[in-house]
């Protein structure tokens, strides 16, 4: 079982790679669409801006490859901008005219700039930089062994819209989704950087590696059943 980190040529992926290796995973960093398509699990890291990253991914055929891997059952984790890219579209660095840059479309909605004031009109600093607490009420395998309220490291100026996919929230100027999961599927995104979030971050990456291994074991079992159609008929 190996986890494929998608390299869309916008920055350094060493920390994410180290984090997953530290979590006991075999890791492959690649920009190649065919490798991504065949991945056991996919991690989409967050570097750069939505429009540039989306364009770069489209150009290298990665957008379609990630969709194919996920459609085939591969667990997925998007980090920061990687989580933003799970949505339909984003406004970051979008051209002034013409349609918004498209994301992977796993979750409905548009990623937009974080408001600089709260509901009461109080001013907040954006980018939202630093350690902030992650709140959730429903247990989730991604947060196994992590208590609600744990601190993670954030650095971002854009936020994902609330949706049925929200599994955890954080408060800055607004309450925003800091973790998402496509309902019923091992397809996750986190706004914070687990690879920069000390022990709690390491635990989250280990949880994702566990989810990826379990999914792989499940699909290996399914393959075996499919390979022996006669036996399954009996």
């Amino acid at each position, binding site marked *: 079982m190996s986890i494929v980190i998608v390299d869309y040529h916008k920055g*350094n992926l060493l920390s994410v790679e180290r984090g997953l290796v530290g979590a006991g995973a075999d890791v492959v960093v690649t920009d190649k669409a065919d490798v991504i398509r065949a991945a056991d699990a996919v991690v989409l890291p967050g570097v750069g801006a939505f429009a540039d990253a989306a364009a770069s991914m489209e150009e290298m055929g990665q957008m379609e490859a990630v969709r194919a891997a996920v459609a085939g059952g591969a667990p997925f984790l998007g980090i920061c901008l990687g989580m933003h890219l799970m949505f339909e579209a984003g406004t970051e660095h979008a051209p002034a005219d013409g349609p918004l840059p498209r994301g992977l479309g796993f979750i409905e909605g548009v990623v937009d700039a974080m408001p600089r004031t709260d509901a009461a009109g109080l001013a907040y600093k954006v980018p939202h930089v630093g350690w902030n607490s992650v709140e959730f009420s429903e247990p989730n395998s991604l947060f196994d062994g992590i208590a609600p309220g744990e601190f993670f490291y954030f650095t971002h100026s854009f936020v994902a819209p609330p949706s049925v996919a929200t599994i955890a929230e954080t408060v800055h100027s607004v309450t925003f989704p800091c973790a998402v999961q496509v309902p019923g599927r091992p397809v996750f995104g986190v706004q914070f950087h687990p690879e920069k979030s000390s022990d709690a971050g390491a635990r989250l990456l280990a949880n994702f590696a566990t989810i990826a291994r379990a999914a792989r074991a499940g699909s290996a079992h399914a393959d075996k059943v499919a390979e022996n159609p006669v036996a399954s008929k009996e």
Partner: protein
Amino acid sequence: MKGVNFVGLRDAGDPIELARAYDEQKADEVIFLDITATSDDRATTVELASHASAELHLPYCVGGGFRSVADIRKMIAAGADKVSVNSAAVANPQLITDAARAFGTQAILCAIDAKAVPGNPNKWEVYVAGGRKNTHIDAIEWAREATRRGAGEILLTSMDRDGSRDGFDCHLTRSVARAVDIPVIASGGVGKLEHFAEGIIEGEADAVLAASVFHFGELTVRQVKESMRAAGIPVRL
């Protein structure tokens, strides 16, 4: 609940070893500053950034002598989460604009060394070249311009307080923090525990930085964070 950041800094010796200790003590971020005095040492800095990204599980920033987007690119490629620019940005403010466009606002920290103007309690001027040269540029105006150009954070050092152990210049810090809508890190002057909370509460800083009190083992990050929590400031412990 927003956690207030706590930043450590190292300017000599074995930076990675110290940074690892601060990581274990739950520092929220580490800034490596002035680790290269000359361009000949730049390769060493790149090596340090790469080493740090393997060893540290917290965000870190590298500052020191970047003059171009190409210089910064090398550091980001080596794994630095952020770079800090100072003298070169004052000489060529376009550097902030170009670097923010290339690497994102969150990756560009603008370091400002400010000193009070004698006889004018509400004016500070920007110093460069390690604090040796007065540019006569108004520090608050420069903070505003850096923000407009895409700096993601300001690391504000009071030259009057640096090394004094009298605490942060809260008047300066508050004046800058209120003038810009990006986070401000207060630096310069910490001598005792209470100073950290003062920087946040009176200085209205978003984060506080200290160096020597940690390097010389006078305080631990944990002690500092506990005292900040006792003062009602949310921190990660």
